[in-house]
């Protein structure tokens, strides 16, 4: 199964000092599949995707993209493998020193694929794909609402036509309607590009809207995988407690005084 997977993670470990965040993660994401990783705050969901992206160095294990281990590849090859990944950050992470259009076309401009005039026009097309007018391109990111910033960040993520897309808490901080709108755009974009995706979220409604498959991260390990549609019906005690938000159960919140 792992040989056919677009992304295959095996025995991935990451600790920060004494705190072991990822403890032997095994995860396969098949081509064209939308995987949703759920789990409590601070359980290492963001660390997992940052390890795959190379933003955090994993301690050990393997991360295979198209069958090639990025942790053992040469730096140039690892960059090439990772260049097919588009990322939507939790807070958008738009470059506030640049206008919106330049944010959207940043990847194209950075690789000298396109002139600035063409990039401005192209940015308008990507903004249209996320439901924004081309005139928004002239604004600064600080002038946009949270929902609009997420849309612009999504437009920036899809501009490079990535084969793999990561979404970090795509609906956090948005009202339920805007959350549903962003989820709809994510599903549309991923389908249009035929991408494989991994989204991390606490939002069960969002997880079911954007995910084909779900995985539960708990105590540094993937403790359950299954169809995203069955999240709320899972027999797994950890998943059941988390998805229904019950205080009692195997998940004990660490309280610090």
């Amino acid at each position, binding site marked *: 199964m792992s040989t056919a997977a677009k992304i295959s993670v095996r025995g991935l470990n990451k600790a920060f000092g004494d705190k072991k965040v990822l403890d032997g993660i095994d995860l396969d994401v098949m081509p064209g599949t939308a995987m949703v990783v759920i789990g409590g705050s601070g359980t290492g969901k963001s660390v997992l995707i940052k390890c795959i992206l190379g933003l955090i160095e994993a301690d050990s294990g393997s991360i295979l993209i198209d069958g090639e281990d990025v942790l053992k590849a040469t730096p140039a090859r690892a960059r090439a493998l990772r260049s097919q990944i588009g990322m939507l950050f939790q807070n958008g992470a*738009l470059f506030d020193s640049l206008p919106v259009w330049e944010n959207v076309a940043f990847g194209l401009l950075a690789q*000298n694929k396109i002139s600035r005039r063409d990039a401005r026009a192209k940015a308008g097309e990507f903004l249209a794909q996320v439901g924004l007018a081309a005139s928004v391109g002239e604004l600064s990111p600080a002038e946009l609402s949270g929902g609009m910033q997420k849309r612009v960040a999504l437009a920036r993520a899809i501009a*490079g036509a990535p084969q793999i897309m990561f979404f970090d808490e795509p609906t956090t901080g948005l009202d339920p309607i805007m959350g549903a709108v962003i989820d709809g755009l994510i599903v549309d974009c991923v389908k249009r590009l035929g991408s494989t995706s991994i989204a991390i979220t606490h939002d069960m409604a969002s997880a079911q809207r954007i995910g084909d498959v779900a995985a539960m991260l708990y105590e540094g390990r993937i403790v359950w995988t299954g169809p995203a549609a069955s999240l709320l019906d899972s027999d797994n005690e950890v998943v059941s407690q988390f998805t229904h938000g019950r205080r009692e159960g195997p998940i004990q919140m660490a309280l610090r005084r």
Partner: protein
Amino acid sequence: MNAVLSPVAALGRAVQNVLGLIGEVFIFALSALSHLLRPPFYWRRIGRSVMEIGYFSLPVVALTTLFTGMVLALQAYTGFSRFNAQSAIASIVVLSVTRELGPVLAGLMVAGRAGAAIAAEMGTMRVTDQIDALSTLSTNPMKYLVTPRLIAGVIALPLLVAVGDILGVMGGYLVATLKLGFNGTDYLHNTFQYLRTDDVVSGLIKASVFGFIIALMGCYHGFKSKGGAQGVGAATTSAVVSASVLILGLDYLLTQVFFSS
């Protein structure tokens, strides 16, 4: 025994931390400089950084050097008039400004203005994931954010100091002619009589080094900042303090190199 050794252990740890920090800054600088000759080159970023570090610092540097030249002329007059050596004032002003005060004061002013701005911008980019976002868009953050600023620092500060030198001399000239009753032509003649090319060039070389240090400290502390708004504030303070201390320390070393013989 522990009570005796604990201050020694604390001293050892402090020395270890300082050496570790120096090594880290050195590697950071080398990493940024390694991108100098490798494409792509971000000319637009370099131009913008020259504007931010140089052009927008012009008012504060101009005022500082102008008033410094004025004060120098006044102080030199009150001191040298006791020995009937007033004619040396012009030389004192021009040599002090070009060799020392121009580059050092411009450096300190730019460290406070542009160095702090670089650290704050970079620190905010770090804590809001913008630097990580650059990596995901196939852009090396060191190449895009740090290298252009280092180049800009090396280019912009000598230009600022050249302007500052002229204004400093002009400040001395204004005080000498308008307040102290010097003849303008004689003052200018005395100004250029003992001024050598080395005096100006050494000041401009110092300015280049200071520009590099200011940009490096701003980038390093901003790049490594963490912990939200408080972390960004701490990075900004560290950038200004470390750049200022290094400017003063390096000024002594460079003066030793240029003029000890």
